[in-house]
Every structure is written in C-alpha cells, then in structure tokens.
C-alpha cells in the first residue's frame, strides 16, 4: 500500500499543480481579450503582476517586525477585520435604513 499511496498523493497534488498552471493562462487570455481595445495600459497592468522590488523590501521589513514579535501590528489588523457585514438575508441593508432613521430621531 505504501508505494501506491505515496504515488497517489503525488498524482493528486501534481494534477492540482497542473490545473493551476493552466488556469491563470486561460483567465489572463480572457482578460487580455476583454481589455484588448483599451490599449497599452491594460497590457502594462498585466505584465506588471510580478511583485516589484519596493514591495519585496516592504515584505522584508514586515518579516523583521514579525521576528521581533511586535504585536501592535496584530492588533491593528484584527481591528480592521472586526468591522464586518451583517446577515444578508434578514437584517441587511433594509434594516440599516431603519437604523438610520433611528439616528435621526
């Protein structure tokens, strides 16, 4: 079983790798087609989806911060996350309207 098992793990992750090597090409082909008549700018945007140097630098900074375990960052990010959306089918935007009215009273 061991050999078959290990092979199947490889097989499935290999197919996954293959699939996600192909998908971006298909997608970007679609995007390219869409943007075709919008000219150079769109192409530049496409070419530019490598992360540029300054960002890499920023990442390095981030990593050093992380290795020094500065938790302030942690905090900031979580705060942003907390501001969530409400339960759509029920209270959603319509109820906001009602709430809004409440504030005016």
């Amino acid at each position, binding site marked *: 079983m*061991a050999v078959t098992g290990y092979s199947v793990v490889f097989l499935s992750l290999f197919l996954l790798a293959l699939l996600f090597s192909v998908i971006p090409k298909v*997608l970007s082909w679609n995007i390219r087609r869409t943007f075709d008549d919008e000219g150079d700018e769109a192409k530049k945007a496409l070419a530019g989806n490598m992360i540029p140097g300054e960002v890499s630098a920023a990442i*390095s900074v981030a990593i050093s911060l992380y290795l020094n375990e500065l938790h302030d960052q942690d905090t900031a990010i979580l705060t942003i996350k907390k501001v969530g959306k409400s339960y759509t089918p029920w209270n959603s935007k319509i109820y906001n309207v009602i709430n809004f009215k409440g504030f005016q009273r």
Partner: protein
Amino acid sequence: MDGLVQFLDYSGFSNITPGHLLMILVGMLFIYLAIRFEYQPILLVPIGFGILIGNTPFIEHGGMALGIYEDGSVMNYLYQGVLKGVFPPLIFLGIGAMTDFSPLISNPKLILLGAAAQLGIFMTYIGAISLGFTNPEAASIGIIGGADGPTAIYLSSRLAPHLVGSIAIAAYTYMALVPLIQPPIMRLLTTQKERRIKMKPPRSVTRMEKVMFPVFALLLTGFISPGSLPLLGMLFLGNLLKESMVTKRLADTARNAMIDIVTIILGVTIGASTQATTFLTRSSVLIFILGATAFMFSTAGGILFARFMNLFLREGNKINPLIGAAGVAAVPESARVAQIEGLKADPTNHLIMHAMAPNVAGVIGSAVAAGIMMSFLL
C-alpha cells in the same frame, strides 16, 4: 466514621499510582512549554490542562461517571466529537477560513513539495507494521508524519480509536518541537550553496483564481481520494467562505468563535484521554518513537525532492531546498524554520513567502494520504 472511610476511598489519595504522577508532570510540562516558550499555546494549554484533569486519580466506574472512558460522564460526551470524527473537520473549516492559498496558486510547482514531504507517513507505516502493529494501527501512526493534528485525530478515530490519544499527543508534541527537529536534517541534506538560492518574488494572484482554487481543489482531490472529503471538503468550504468576499461574516465566525470552541473541547478531551490507567502502555512509547522518525523522514522527503526538481529547472528558477522541509505541514512553524535557516545562510534571503506554498500544500497532501489509507483499510 464510615463516611470518612468512604470519602477517603473515593479521594485521589487512595487511588493514585506512579503513572498518575508521571502524567501530571507531563501535563505541567506542556503548560510550562506553552506559556514560557509560546510553543503552540492554543493547543498545548488545553491539552496540558486536560492531562491534569484526566490524571487526577478517581475511582473509575464507581458510579460518579468522571472518567473520559466512562459512559455518561461529561468528558465522555465531549469526547464523542473526537471519537466520531466531527471535531477535526470543523477545525479544518476554521483553518480554511484563515488560510491564504495565494503563495501556492502563484507558484504551482511548489505544490509537489507538499506531496514529497508525506514520505514519513508511508515509511512509518512500514516501520509500524514491522513492529507488530496491525494495518489500521500502522496507518494511524504513520499519519503523524503528516504533521497535522486534525488529520491525525480524524484518521486514527476512524482506524484505531484506542490510539487517538497517544497519536494526537505525539503529533502535537513534535509539531511544537519542529524548531528543534528540522534544522539538523535541513543542514545535513543541503549544501551551503543551495541554502543561498534566491527565488523570484511570487506573482500576485487574482480574486478569480482565489475563488476557483477551493472549488477545483475540492473536485480534484475528492475524485482521487474520496476518503479525504470530510477533511478537505470543510477546509475548502472555509476557504471559499473567505475568498468569495460575500460571506465574510460566516468566515469570521468560522475562524473565530467556532474554531475556538472546538479547539478548547478537542484539546481538553485529548488531554484527558491520556488517563494513566489506559494510556501508559508499550504502544504509547513505540508511537512516540515512530512519530519522531515520521517527522524526520517527511522533512527529508521534502528537501530531497526539492533538490531532485532542481535537476530539471534552469538557473534562476531553482528552488531553495530549505523550503522543501516546510512541506511537512506543521503550519506555520515549519515555514518559519525554513525562513530562519535561510537567513542563517544569507541574511538578505527571505524564504517565508515561498515556504508557505509547500506548507499549505502539505496540509492537503496529508489529508489526501489519510483518505487513501482509509480506502485501503476500511
């Protein structure tokens, strides 16, 4: 007077054994490691305290229903979530809702490292068989090499429920010790020059790709290894809740309140399941030894396969083999280890972004392996 005798009979002082004392020390050690060194505290604190609860000596089957192995006890009810295999998928749901698969999507060939680093699973399976364990037991022990707690608990609850406790404790112990286990192997199996390889920054990933990933990854892994569906179904559902952007509130709850509740109950019951009277056996010792070798083989598998891939990759595209070690999973500890070892070789070489790809692939890899072993053994 009779009352006093009965009280003493029931008290811990009458029922204590050296095993209880040993396990109480182990529990305190877990808590100490978690608080002092912040080794996986989210898991080691509840597990350690669970060990204390489970090893306070009491009369089992004395009518009070205190032990985790006694019908009708509270611990036993809570433990059903482990035994029935319900908690691990729920934890995967939360993990999916907090995992970012972008590093993996942006450089798909690194996924293969997450496959290679499951080597320890299958080597340990063979080893365990040769030590006299049954097939299902051996598979459950092997999965420790997947370096993934919920997967190990899920598989062993299905194949060898009597070993869940030892396997889970071994898996979490070695996951906490990854910063000690992996570095020597990494240095042994790589040259200084390899450790200095710089990799190209990953491309950014579109929202569309992020949304498609959980859907297609589910279908692909589900078709090949249906046994991994309970785990990977939930993992990818959680990820879709996160990446779809339209179900933010569900993703938030899955990765906060829900996973926390399950983590506490899972941890404390896994801990309590190490009750000295059933836990301290030759099996448990062997599982700890086999578990260590499993981690080593998996680490080696990831590193060596990265070097193997480099034979076919042209200059500038080569993989730093240190990130192969991150393929074992143990998210995110083993990716951190790759980063730290990389910095030792070249202080300007940040590998962590790249190491996250095999790291999360390793989670998928071990769940697929678990599914395959189930299809063979059930």
